[in-house]
């Protein structure tokens, strides 16, 4: 399990290969890549700037990965999240989970994303032609997280 917060881009394929080849009892590798879209709420996005709270980010993401490992029989997981200023089509985040069988990896990967969205201290600011604005929280993210509580 690893967490990396970085300004630089990452090579998703290389990360997935490393995770996959690390263990020959891995049968399934599920991953999520998030990228900057060129439109949000109807406005063209020029750049997206990600701010974070460094010490807390790492702690929060590690806790989320640990919780995923408690809930599902997974082999390894990786979270890479970028900070700084990004353009449309740039990668923001990679979450990858390996396991023997696919069901565990799918659930754990989606769980980590849902909790990252609502529990890791990142904040997004968009630059549009009308100026800068903070991205608003989406109700759908709270609902996505709530699904896991039972």
């Amino acid at each position: 399990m690893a967490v990396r917060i970085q300004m630089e881009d990452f090579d998703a394929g290389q990360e997935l290969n490393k995770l996959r080849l690390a263990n020959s009892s891995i049968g399934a590798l599920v991953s999520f890549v998030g990228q900057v879209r060129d439109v949000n709420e109807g406005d063209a996005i020029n750049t997206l700037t990600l701010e974070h709270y460094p010490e807390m980010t790492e702690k929060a993401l590690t806790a989320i990965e640990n919780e995923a490992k408690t809930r599902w029989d997974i082999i390894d997981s990786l979270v890479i999240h970028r900070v700084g200023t990004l353009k449309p089509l740039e990668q923001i985040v990679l979450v990858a989970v390996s396991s023997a069988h696919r069901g565990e990896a799918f659930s754990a990967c989606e769980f980590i994303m849902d909790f990252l969205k609502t529990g890791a201290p990142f904040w997004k600011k968009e630059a549009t032609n009308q100026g800068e604005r903070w991205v608003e929280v989406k109700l759908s993210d709270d609902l996505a997280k709530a699904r896991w509580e039972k």
Partner: protein
Amino acid sequence: MNIKILYFARVKEAVNYSAEELALPNDISTITALKNYLSQRGDTWADLFDGKQTIHAAINHELVDNLATIKAGDEIAFFPPVTGG
């Protein structure tokens, strides 16, 4: 007691700085008490903590609620709901 406060994102922009060191009166021992204390600084602060917007608090990198206890040396952070990913 001495504490450190960090501000992030929209909150940082409102108060116009990202961190401060503060000598708190010893009777300010919860997040709620700290919010009320800071609110006395004037409009910006009072607006921030008037409860109309969600402001999360963390103590030493852990999300906490308003009843959480502050100790000397703590690093407190105030920030809006998160929007990463």
